[in-house]
């Protein structure tokens, strides 16, 4: 009975890992850029959420959840157009280095604008506390599960059922053909980067009430995002979903039975997966390299 409860806890906490990792995987799968700025976009999401929900605009939490990621997506697109797109199709190390530089600049900028110390961000009152569903569950975490399901459904529909989504997938698989058909890929890739950034930011907003908002918050989450994406398969869509849930379960079970190893457990899992199935559990779908 205890074991079942811990597994359920793990699935619930895993959904946050899913949101955190999705953006990273999509950007690599579609554009081929390893986005080291992922962590700083996550942090920026949390900070902008603070700003729009605070004295400046006073938005309620539900709206903040939508507005902050959109703002980050827009900022990311404004960086992509003049700078990032020059690295497409080149040695992946170049895009990686550029985004790494973005991360350093971004953290410095956050410290300058919002200060070096953490800022309070609480769970909104209507989502606090827990509810008894057989086991006691934190309402806020169930909320995160709901948001994750909505986001995954929305993205799936977008990439499979909308013309723009299909163009994105076609463009990463065979860019030349799409261009010959008269469709310009540049704005498409900009949009993809914006979506990936918005997803990172969404992760930041959701995590902020649980872990706090401070300038270094992006660095730790970057490691987790990469681990989840590697386990799931870099570049795939369902990879981070499955891997995120799996990592959630593994970390929770380790915390329950052997807490000392709980932080290390996700890395052990990653090593095991890489040894047995280097492409990741759900295979890599490098659309742009197939």
């Amino acid at each position, binding site marked *: 009975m205890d074991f079942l*409860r*811990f597994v359920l*806890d793990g699935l*619930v*906490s895993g959904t946050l890992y899913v949101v955190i990792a999705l953006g990273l995987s999509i950007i690599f799968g579609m554009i081929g850029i390893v986005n080291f700025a992922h962590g700083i976009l996550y942090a920026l999401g949390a900070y902008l959420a603070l700003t729009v929900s605070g004295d400046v605009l006073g938005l309620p939490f539900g709206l903040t959840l939508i507005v902050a990621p959109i703002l980050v997506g827009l900022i990311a697109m404004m960086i992509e157009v003049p700078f990032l797109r020059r690295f497409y199709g080149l040695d992946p190390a170049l895009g990686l280095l550029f985004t790494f530089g973005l991360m350093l600049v971004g953290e410095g900028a956050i410290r300058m604008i919002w200060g*070096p*110390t*953490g*800022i*309070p*961000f*609480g*769970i909104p009152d209507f989502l*606090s*506390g*827990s509810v008894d569903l057989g086991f*006691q569950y*934190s*309402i*806020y*975490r169930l909320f995160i599960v709901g948001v994750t399901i909505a986001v995954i459904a929305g993205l799936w529909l977008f990439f499979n059922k909308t013309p723009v989504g299909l163009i994105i997938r076609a463009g990463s698989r065979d860019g030349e053909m799409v261009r010959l058909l008269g469709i310009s890929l540049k704005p498409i890739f900009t949009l993809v980067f914006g979506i990936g950034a918005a997803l990172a930011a969404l992760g930041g907003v959701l*995590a902020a*009430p*649980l*872990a*706090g*908002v*401070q*300038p*270094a918050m992006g660095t*730790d989450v970057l490691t987790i995002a990469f681990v989840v994406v590697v386990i799931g398969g870099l570049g795939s869509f369902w990879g981070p979903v499955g891997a995120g849930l799996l990592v959630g379960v593994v*970390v*929770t079970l380790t*915390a*329950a039975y052997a*807490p*000392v*190893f*709980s*932080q*290390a457990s996700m890395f052990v899992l990653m090593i095991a997966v890489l040894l047995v199935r280097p492409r990741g559990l759900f295979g890599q779908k490098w659309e742009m390299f197939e």
Partner: protein
Amino acid sequence: MHMITRSQAMAPLAMAAALALTAGCGALGQAKPGQGKDAGGPITIGHLTPKSGFLGQLGAQDLAGAQFAVDEINGSGGLLGRQVKLISKDNVDPGVAVQNATKLVETNHVDALFGEISTASGLVIAGIADRSKTVYFNTGWNSNLGRGKNCSPYVFHIDGNNTMYVSTVGLSVTKNTKANKYYMLTADYAFGHDLRQESKLLLSTVKGTQIVGDVLVPTGTSDYTTYIRRIQAAAPDTVWLNLAGSDQTTFLKQYTQEYGAPYNLTGGILDTPGAWAAGRKNIAGVWPNPYYHKLDTPKNKEFVTRYRKAHGNVPPSAQAWQSYIAVKIWAEGVKKAGTVEDAKVVEALRSGMEFDVLKKRPASFRKLDNQLMYDMEVVKVKAPGESAEDQYDIFDIVEEVPGVGQNLEAIQIPAARSGCNMDK
């Protein structure tokens, strides 16, 4: 005509030059190590602290307190007639700490070292200070380790040690509540283990207490759901936290917001800046603190007012207070010794001097291990409805330990356990 050859001319010239040099040196008295420091120009001190990473928030406070003291000294005529210059270094880890401390001592020839928050870095700097005979003030690390076997007469501890923190809150909590079942959560690294050892020792001295849970938590854990579940299963009276840095506040936020803080809460440490960052609504419990800005003494009120004006209305945390008084205490030692020469300053500081630390009674250094002894504050997070001055006013001071009338030695590391021997 007889021309003097160059070699013949050189000898008297060289002699003259040598005489001139020694005459100059002679004017300063006999050349001794460190004597050159009193020569003139600014007095330089080095400050080392982590300005980034998970201790970065505290590091910023550490530097702010020290700089504030330096500015105060310079503004009122300097020290021994000379201005004080502070060189600040970012110690992101112990490896960098070695390089920075060495550079400050050997290249910058600083007259004193201040700082550090991480015990690992602090121990390393203490070693360098002892070997180079440079006086060093520990402004932010609590481990008993550096106050024991590895103690040095050149290293002075301004921040409380773990025994002080744990005794303060332990004595207060066990006296004021009937709670006797404790569940302990400890950060799985040196500082956490140290706190845990002291906490268990203290609780074992109180009759009727029982430890119903004792779990190690890896640092950097972001999700405490499982740990809270296990606490609920054990149903203690009080949860005792030995977590560190942002982990403390992450746990508190989840424990309070998601589960309503079902049990009493206390622990070995809660950094005020971390608590400010979490927000008063999102934390709870009773905690030990070397200092809280609402301390009601005239000297403290004046200090806080001045500090707030200079720092955008942010009050000084315990960390800032610690580095502020460290610099002021060093200055007092220098004034008494009449020189910045380290050995003389050490002698002065260890001669039983009393220092005004803005509290109800003065502080002095413990002869055994150079620990600055003062009353610690027991603070309780304000209840949700309680009135507060502003977003920084998050605690009520419950009491002081040991408190006026009690011996300050009561919360120190017992001599039998100390392991420190300054006369080696």
